[in-house]
């Protein structure tokens, strides 16, 4: 077997290029900076564009402009940068601009600790922009995921015309690991669907049964309107409540109704297990070690590693949890996604292990929580 050695951040950059990304803009911030460095190394020489904005707001602004001109765009930052992105994230949600946004999470709150990891932005990514409409958040576990989930993120951004987040973590992004680049299971590349040209173009028109409007690029021959304000199918401001309701419902349904088609996960289901461990991100690695150990010791547990965090893959979670009595949710924060698990499975016993001090949650801590019943 022959491997390369890559850090997660470089794998994200290479995954982006493999997905057809041709525009990147970012602003230096630990621990996401090496994504920007990698894109600068990869993109301009390949005919793409890589820019450093004057701040995070400019970086995502560049991306939204370029995306509307038809390019496949990505930006990368950490928690403090996501805060600055917020207003433009809701723009991309409401005005259906495809973009991949990488959050290499660091220990917060606020400027926090630049070189320490955490999964403290998981709810912030979902709820941190005005309007509260759904977004897609994918969470990689290792360097392979960094590559392949980034490709999926581009595909989803293109397919659903929306922002897609990669919720990475310093402990994935800046950790180097062996990777077999030729052995990865890569998806087919998807690009946004063009609007039909046989009728007058309306930038936000959807036919019956269609949840995502067809796209045309700013700069092509047909005039395109893009607008951050509440708009009608033509892209003009509307105050018609019925029109607005239709649009908001469509923005919600286009993702919630489709999540079963992009529920990335790993499930290790043991028939006779009484306990199900649910986790995501770098913590899934400790959880896998625990799973293996418990199996070896004859005390099997089940393990669900979620890689699609938002929209919440409710069907999957219910399905995997149906035979267990007890669920242990483990997160590198003070308790965020556990709220979703409690919401979905009110009849189960749900215990939580969280930690946010810059250290990884260890297999021993997880085992202790499992045994503490």
């Amino acid at each position, binding site marked *: 077997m022959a491997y390369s050695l890559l850090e997660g951040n470089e794998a994200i950059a290479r995954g982006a290029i493999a997905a057809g990304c041709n525009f990147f803009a970012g602003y230096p911030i630990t621990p996401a900076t090496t994504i920007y460095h990698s894109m600068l190394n990869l993109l301009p020489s390949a005919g793409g564009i890589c820019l450093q904005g004057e*701040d995070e707001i400019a970086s995502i602004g560049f991306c939204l402009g370029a995306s509307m001109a038809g390019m496949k765009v990505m930006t990368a930052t950490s928690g403090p940068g996501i805060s600055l992105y917020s207003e433009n994230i809701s723009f991309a949600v409401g005005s259906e601009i495809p973009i991949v946004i990488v959050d290499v999470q660091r220990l917060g709150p606020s400027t926090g600790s630049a070189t320490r990891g955490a999964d403290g932005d998981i709810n912030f990514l979902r709820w941190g922009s005005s309007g509260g409409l759904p977004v897609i958040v994918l969470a990689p576990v290792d360097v392979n995921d960094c590559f392949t989930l980034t490709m999926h993120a581009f595909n989803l951004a293109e397919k659903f015309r929306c922002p897609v987040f990669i919720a990475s973590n310093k402990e994935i992004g800046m950790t*180097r690991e062996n990777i077999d680049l030729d052995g990865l299971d890569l998806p087919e590349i998807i690009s946004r669907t063009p609007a039909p040209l046989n009728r007058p173009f309306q930038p936000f028109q959807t036919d019956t049964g269609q949840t995502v409007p067809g796209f045309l690029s700013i700069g092509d021959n047909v005039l395109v309107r893009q607008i951050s304000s509440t708009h009608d199918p033509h892209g003009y401001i509307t105050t018609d409540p019925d029109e607005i309701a239709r649009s908001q419902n469509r923005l919600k349904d286009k993702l919630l109704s489709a999540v079963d088609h992009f529920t990335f996960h790993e499930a290790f289901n043991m028939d006779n297990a009484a306990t199900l461990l649910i986790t995501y991100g770098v913590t899934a690695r400790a959880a896998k070690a625990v799973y293996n150990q418990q199996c070896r010791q004859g005390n099997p547990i089940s393990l669900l590693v979620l890689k699609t965090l938002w929209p919440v893959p409710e069907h999957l979670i219910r399905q995997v949890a149906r035979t267990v009595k007890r669920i242990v949710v483990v997160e590198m924060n003070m308790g965020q996604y556990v709220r979703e698990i409690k919401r979905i499975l009110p009849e189960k016993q749900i215990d939580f292990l969280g930690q946010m001090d810059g250290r990884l949650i*260890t297999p021993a801590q997880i085992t202790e929580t499992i045994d503490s019943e």
Partner: protein
Amino acid sequence: MNSFLNAERPPVFCPGCTHERITHTLDQAFQDMGLVGHQVVIVSDIGCSGLFDTFFHTHAFHGLHGRALTYAAGLKMARPELKVVVTMGDGGQGIGGAHLLAACRRNLDLTLLILNNFNFGMTGGQFSATTPPDAQLGSGFLNQLERPLDICEVARSAGAPYVMRCSGFRKNLAEEIQRAIAYKGFSVMDIWGICPGRYTKKNRLTTKTIDDALAKLPPLEGMVAENTRPEYGQHYRKIAAVQKKAAKPAVIEAQYEAPQIGRQEVILLGSAGQRIITAGELLCIAGLTAGLKTTQKNEYNITVLRGPSISELILSPEKIDYTGIDMPSVVVALDQEGVDRRGNLFKHLAKDALIIQISGVTLPANKADIHRVDLKAQSIKRTDWALASLAVLAKLEKVLQPEMLEAALKIKFKGKTLTSSLDLIGRVEIGEWA
């Protein structure tokens, strides 16, 4: 020529608003340039200036307050052939000041039309970055306390190669707008006008007083000679075209056998500047040359050449899950800062664990085997200690073999660095058991 104005969406400005006049003037400029709608994008943001895109049959991009220049930059880089016209108010200059400065410094071929009416009209006439201190506005006395911004002087200082300050009532305004759009670079027009809905309710401002005020300022009539330079997009494409193609990641074949069979966990405890992270990477690459899986998890502070630097390396024939190390098989103590940061791990070290102790570093109490090396006495520079310690491990046949390390160096380095590092690992003496 056909008007660019959208007959179905006529301007909705207050009667007497200069914005309406500029709307028609901009239409005239487009027509005079012989453009067609799809060759133009109007980028606007929030406030009354943000209504502009609605009235024109062009591409349109209407975004967040103060951020129009950022979208415009993305559009122009993606579509160099497009005429990108940005309309913003004086409010947008305040909230988006950083973007104005950057656009001036960058010199991308955009045209910024600032519809400067000295207040936030849409929200009720609050003071903006250009409000005079003696104006009576909806924000009470606060404007008395701030000095108004001279956008044009700022733009010129920031490097804008084309800056014009003029009245919205200027006779040849269409011609001037045309000249600004035709300019190949970042052009700024600070166009002064009247806001009858808010500003002139309590403040006297007429075409005459605007002209008088402008006459008192140094004229800025377009090209700024000292700022003339290549346009950003063209310049970018020229330099990008000669960038070397990025190399593919090295694919490392398994060709050696590691000295130990099972999983090996190594912690390098050093300080910033000792090339700890590079040494860790080399150990990982060495592991790959023996067909092992490997992870490298690092810890350091935000300071660059100060503070502890720690690298945790796992080499294993099995897939590696958890990347942390609690019970290392090898600890390399390169600097006191690193040792102190992980002082707790020493008391748990197994009896058969190995510590490579570089002279000068004090170890907390432990039961492990200690191997001492005096690298200073061997005239090895502190920056090479981490690599030298890998050579010691290799010579002791712990975790890696000398040929694995040599192969890793050949994969990672080239030229002089390779020669000197090969020389280094060759001459390192392995020291002695404590």
